[in-house]
């Protein structure tokens, strides 16, 4: 071993790791790697605090091996061996998750699914079948060429995978019309312990007991490894309208969107930026500067979209600011550079997404911003609302700060997170809207779920009695 990292999450290794690796090498040959560079590559996902560790020569944890299955049969073999030997297994897609869900906390084996990348479109059924490792950009490009769209555009579209989306219950920027990934999943194939491939068929609807598909959506690898999914697709939108507005207050903008949705209109994109973020993202647009900026995209069938546009224009209480701010957003929405620029000099940045019903939305926004700013070292805290429902809204908070003297980056980071999570729970919100739980948020999950937390634990152990599937993730 030529790695010289001080591991941070020192956990006891589990099971007969060496035996498992030997057996997997026997079964899968060079689809198993124990090379240091590979082990390092799978030591982290995009949990931001771990990059501060990395810069100091620390990694959150190291796996003992990485496996690169090329078929469902390969995944079955991996799960079988892991179960038999009691060795942890961690599914890995694009590694763009931000909460440490793929960190191999107890050592063991990471399974990278990116070689499972077959695609098939069923046009009559408006459905696409995709291997878990299909890249986000690829599936959308594949559908676009054939006249369809998935309508799923997370900011991680370029690096992430279809399986990762389902595993984390991801959502895209166009969700107000197309929904989250949970609204698109029709069927799932997954390998669960002790090495069984199960299929939840892609029916339009089925009343065959509780919906087991829902069990896997957002399960973050704690039940098994998804290998294939069937997703709904939509015809590529015929027409698109771009609108933006300047409002005097966040409440006014939120209320406008609530009324639009309650009238039945479904814009694809709605993003309300608080004053700080409006200045940050739209400083070139005088009419928005210092105001609450909202960008909206309405799209779909021409006649329907036109009608929805009229509803938006009629209901939005704000000054119209034209198409340009929306074009600007479309052009810059995948620019991710803050961590690269600021983390190396010691600035701690992260984003926190939560959801709340309309009745407490403005209250939650104010409480969370205040809570984050109350932590010594916080330099800025801001938010935008980016996903909307008849019942409420998702707020996406951003904070940045420098740990005060005597406090480590991690202590500061955890303090801000704790303040935000507390304020969210106290304001009637849910602690996660679409990033999931992972290892970072697991400490607050029991509080949110109450007695239902035990239900989740029991389901986990009923499916995975030896706790080899992503142990330590989500549930303790």
């Amino acid at each position, binding site marked *: 071993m030529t790695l010289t990292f001080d591991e941070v999450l020192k956990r006891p290794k589990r099971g007969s790791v060496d035996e498992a690796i030997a057996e997997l090498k026997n079964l899968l040959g060079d689809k198993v790697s124990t*090379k*240091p*560079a590979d082990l390092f590559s799978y030591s982290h996902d995009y949990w931001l605090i771990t990059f501060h560790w990395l810069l100091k020569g620390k990694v959150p944890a190291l796996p003992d091996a990485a496996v690169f299955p090329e078929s469902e049969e390969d995944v079955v073999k991996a799960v079988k061996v892991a179960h038999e030997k009691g060795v942890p297994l961690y599914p890995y897609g694009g590694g*763009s998750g931000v909460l440490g869900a793929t960190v191999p906390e107890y050592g063991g084996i990471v399974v*990278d699914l990116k070689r499972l990348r077959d695609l098939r479109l069923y046009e009559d059924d408006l459905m696409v079948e995709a291997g878990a490792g299909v890249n986000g950009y690829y599936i959308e490009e594949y559908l676009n060429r054939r006249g369809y769209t998935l309508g799923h555009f997370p900011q991680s*579209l370029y690096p992430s995978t279809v399986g990762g989306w389902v595993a984390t219950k991801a959502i895209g920027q166009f969700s107000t019309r197309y929904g989250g990934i949970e609204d698109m999943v029709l069927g799932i194939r997954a390998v669960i312990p002790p090495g069984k491939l199960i299929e939840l068929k892609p029916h339009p609807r089925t009343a065959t007991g509780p919906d087991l598909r829902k069990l896997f959506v957002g399960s973050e690898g704690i039940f098994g490894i998804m290998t294939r999914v069937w997703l709904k697709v939509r015809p590529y939108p015929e027409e698109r309208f771009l609108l933006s507005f300047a409002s005097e207050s966040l409440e006014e903008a939120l209320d406008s969107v609530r009324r639009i949705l309650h009238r039945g209109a479904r814009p694809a994109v709605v993003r309300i930026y608080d004053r700080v973020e409006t200045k940050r993202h739209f400083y*070139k647009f005088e009419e928005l500067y210092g105001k609450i900026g909202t960008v909206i995209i309405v799209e779909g069938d021409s006649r329907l979209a036109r009608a929805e546009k009229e509803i938006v224009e009629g209901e939005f209480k704000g000054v119209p600011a034209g198409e340009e701010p929306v074009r600007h957003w479309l052009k810059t929405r*995948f620019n991710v550079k803050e961590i690269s620029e600021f*983390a*190396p000099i010691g600035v701690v940045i992260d984003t926190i997404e939560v959801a709340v019903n309309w009745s407490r939305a403005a209250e939650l926004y104010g409480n969370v911003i205040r809570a984050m700013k109350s932590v010594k070292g916080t330099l800025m805290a801001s938010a935008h609302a980016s996903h909307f429902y008849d019942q409420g809204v998702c707020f996406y908070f951003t904070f940045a700060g420098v740990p005060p003297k005597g406090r480590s980056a991690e202590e500061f980071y955890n303090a801000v997170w704790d303040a935000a999570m507390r304020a969210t729970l106290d304001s009637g919100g849910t602690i996660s809207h679409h990033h999931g739980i992972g290892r970072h948020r697991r400490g607050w999950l029991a509080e949110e779920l109450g007695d239902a937390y035990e239900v989740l634990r029991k389901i986990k152990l009923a499916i995975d009695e030896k706790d080899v599937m992503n142990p330590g993730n989500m549930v303790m």
Partner: protein
Amino acid sequence: MPGKWDWLKDEIGFSNLLTGGRMIFKVVQGKLSADDLTKCALCPNMCRHACPVSIVEGRETTSPAGKARVALMIREGRLELNLDNLEPLYTCLGCDLCTLYCPFEFSVADLIQPVKEEAVNMGVVFEEFRKVFENLETSGDVYGNADSGTDGSGKVLYFKGCTVRNERPELAEKTLVLLEKLGYEAFTISETCCGLPAYNLGNTELFKKVAKRTAERLNATGAELIVTSCPSCAYTFHVLYPKYGIKLKPQVLHITELLGEVIGGLKLKGAGTVTYHNPCKLALHLGRRGLLKSLLENVEGLEIREPRRELFCCGHGGSAVSRLKPELAEEIAAERRKQLRDGAARVVTACPSCELALNGDGLEVLDIVEFLLERMEE
């Protein structure tokens, strides 16, 4: 109009400027910055979808940011400088498709180059590369076959490059025919390699040595213009020679650049359907992204179908992947062939390596020179 960072000043406030805020402002003012390799390593791989290696091999370690992270850890002494740890860095095509989607416009190949150079300096070299270095040293040809051609003279020198010389000699003949039809009396010489393979593999010292030797030979011919079929040679002459202070007196043009200047005066006819494959070196490194397509647009009656992806490496760029992992190179080529088949069964390109990599699987791949000659004859 407010400035880009005014929001931050307003938000942070004056009192914080004396504490952590000062650091942030040093960053936004450009006074404080991490180095580029670190920045790349801290990115969530926003260019993954563009990287042929990453898409086809599907391994985190060889994703663009994955490579940067490995390089950073080697540089920081966290990962040993050995062949196992260098392998991901050499699993790079040098196509720079990552650059197109990078908010910093980084080239991962450029960022990891110093680690490769360090490896070569320390003698940590793959056996597959030693042979290349040896060939360049002894025969001046990457394949190890010294050019036995004779030295002509004149104003326009046609530089074949190692791949055309060894693998596609008929393309050299056809290019000379085309040049003659265009009114250029081109001559050839006994060539030595431009040096790019050595550079790509991290042997910058050898690159400089080979490049100097080649530049001297080319300068000695007295030619005013060098035309080449190989975009990699053209890029090396255009970009790398000046970067390393190697003076080349003649002007250098890739054959497509020359054709771009004269094609308007040609009568080109012919029905049929083609698609095209843009060589990365021509489209990105020489900045001629639309050139190949525009040449085809001069053929009257020709239907040009867009390839499924405008840019995607053939799998044989960068000198390393095809030598170290030929199966992966072929898998990437197969992926590209699949994309091109969506366009048409006939593909026009402008790089001998791309042509060799992509021919087959129901595709007929032609060099632009062959294609235009065909259209001129018709």
